[in-house]
């Protein structure tokens, strides 16, 4: 009897471990560890060899309705474009990245994307070892490597997320009544830092007297902490909050919903995520699906690599339609500023300083 129970429990645990590994384990054996995101593609690729094998390394989970989710959508867009085989691995920290890059290269992937500036260093190391594989980093190139020494098979999409954050700062400054606005960030990487600083800059461009309260929660996954952070801000009198921290940010939106405070969506139009969508003044949209899928054509054209700076001007960063709470004259003023950024009249330089 005992043996039967032991056997059964082992079986359950073993199945469970596999489910766990689907997201977490190194992609050594692609049949177990790499999740092919669409069954139909997996079937069709049996009939004919895939034209290109594409993998994405993600810092968080694809259900965050934000940064990671949009990369997943981008991967699906690629799949819809033709005969491509795709895979992704979630929840990879910067120190694990090198191993995962290498594993994907070893498993015969032709194009490996690291979704976040924090993967830049690891990618540079691996890219030199695999000159035939193309790489992509959603973020700026490592600052300590001179641009001419960067491996030529990596494309750094140093997109100007901070332009969106700047515009959010402008909107926040025009909408606040208390003279206090807030920013909730998730962690310590260049994208987050430049978001924070650009938001502060945007607020100051309208009225330097407005106070910007900032909190870095240190986590992208703690929804409950995000909610408490926002409540703490609201109790201090903050009445407009920008969040750029995935799951933690969902908690911020929840608090704003509860306390009737204005907020912004991040990466996608997040107004649908709360019961009072009109509180989400606008969302800074980042067209990550396009950013990723447009690389395929570049690779095919043969002139891949380097650093690009997409932003508001080419639609990679854009603003969602304003909510009903934004008065027409504010919307007009903000649209004018967006146009000035697009035309280059206002230049927002990413500022990576921490404090």
């Amino acid at each position, binding site marked *: 009897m005992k043996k039967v129970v032991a056997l059964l*429990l082992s079986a359950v*645990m073993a199945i469970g471990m596999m489910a766990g590994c689907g997201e977490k384990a190194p992609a050594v054996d692609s049949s177990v560890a790499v999740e092919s995101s669409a069954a139909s593609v997996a079937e069709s690729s049996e009939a004919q060899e895939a034209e290109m094998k594409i993998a994405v390394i993600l810092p968080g989970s694809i259900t965050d309705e934000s940064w990671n989710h949009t990369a997943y959508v981008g991967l699906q867009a690629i799949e819809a474009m033709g005969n491509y085989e795709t895979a992704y691995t979630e929840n990879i920290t910067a120190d694990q990245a090198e191993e995962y890059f290498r594993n994907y290269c070893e498993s015969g992937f032709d194009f490996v994307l690291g979704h976040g500036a924090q993967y830049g260093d690891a990618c540079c190391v691996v890219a030199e070892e695999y000159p035939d594989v193309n790489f992509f980093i959603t973020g700026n190139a490592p600052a300590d490597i001179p641009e001419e020494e960067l491996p030529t098979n990596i494309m750094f999409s140093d997109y100007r997320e901070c332009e969106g954050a700047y515009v959010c700062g402008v909107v926040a400054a025009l909408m606040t009544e208390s003279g206090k606005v807030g920013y909730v960030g998730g962690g310590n990487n260049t994208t987050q830092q430049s978001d924070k600083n650009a938001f502060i800059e945007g607020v100051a461009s309208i009225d330097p007297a407005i106070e910007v309260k900032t909190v870095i929660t240190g986590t992208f996954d*703690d929804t409950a902490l995000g909610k408490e952070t926002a409540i703490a801000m609201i109790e201090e009198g903050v009445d407009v909050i920008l969040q750029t921290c995935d799951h933690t940010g969902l908690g911020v939106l929840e608090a704003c919903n509860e306390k009737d405070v204005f907020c912004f969506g991040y990466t996608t139009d997040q107004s649908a995520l709360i019961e009072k969508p009109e509180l989400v003044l606008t969302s800074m949209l980042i067209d990550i699906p396009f950013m990723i899928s447009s690389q395929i054509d570049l690779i095919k054209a043969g002139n891949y690599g380097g650093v690009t700076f997409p932003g508001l001007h080419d639609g990679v960063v854009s603003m969602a339609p304003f909510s009903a709470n934004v008065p027409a004259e504010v919307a007009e003023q903000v649209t004018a500023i967006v146009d000035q950024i697009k035309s280059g009249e206002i230049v927002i330089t990413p500022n990576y300083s921490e404090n």
Partner: protein
Amino acid sequence: MNASFLTALFASGMRQGVPLIYGSVGDCVSEKAGVVGICIEGEIIFGAFFSYLFALRSGNLWLGVLMGAIAGMISSLLVAAWSIYFKQDQSIIGIMFNIFAAGFTNFLNRKIFGVSIASEKIETFKPIKIPGLSEIPVIGEVFFNQDILTYLSIVLAVITLLVMKKTKLGLQMLAVGENPKAAQASGVQVQRYRLIAYMFCGFTAGLAGASLTLSTVGSFTEVISAGRGFICLAIVILARWNPVVACIAGFGFGSIQALQLRLQIMGSVVPHQFFIALPYLITLVVLIVAGHNIRAPKELGVPFDKESR
């Protein structure tokens, strides 16, 4: 530092402390009986997921709470089987279980809710003012204007302490953790008692998960526990395996977390990393300062073998 600031600070501390209180009260019992609850983290995730699922689908928050607790309890059986009956290392089983819990709930979450639909919200538990007591300045707002799960967590801590100190069951539990051989000689079924203690721990960890989804967030996000289970382990040691002290320590940890957020909001030249680390730093310091003569249950973490001598 006026009264309204302190009130808001400690009220937030209490809210953030609730999952920690549930988790650590259960772990007090299981550790007293000799089994370490490394697995609390995973049980919280299970509790959070199933409480959300059932509350959403049935529209009844209380069914959600119950199913969350039961899910925590059932998942604890898996760990209990290995660590109590197959006598494997409790820490290793616990860590394996935590990885399993995170992966398995992610898997269920995606199978049931998908990856692209906006997560459906549930109406969370609302604060209940306790007549009279909630009028007391500061304390009233902090302790007597919270939701029902907060009150239950305090009641649970007190009852658990009474049962452990004043009843035969409690004393037998202590014996099982201190000297299982003597307990066995006096007719206590050591492994059964340890199983019960473990299940109780799973039950309360499930409640901790339910409090995250049903009274704070209103939805389930992946790996929602975010390390709280491990904080519970530290709290239990700090509290010297006393559920009521654990309750206070949980409230204390939540308050420090609330304080660090407010310190960041006030703005300072100190890097934010310091504030993020602050709650953990203080926990460490308290452990060092107040922990010089902490004595753990003697047979903690040691599997009991009936036939050994």
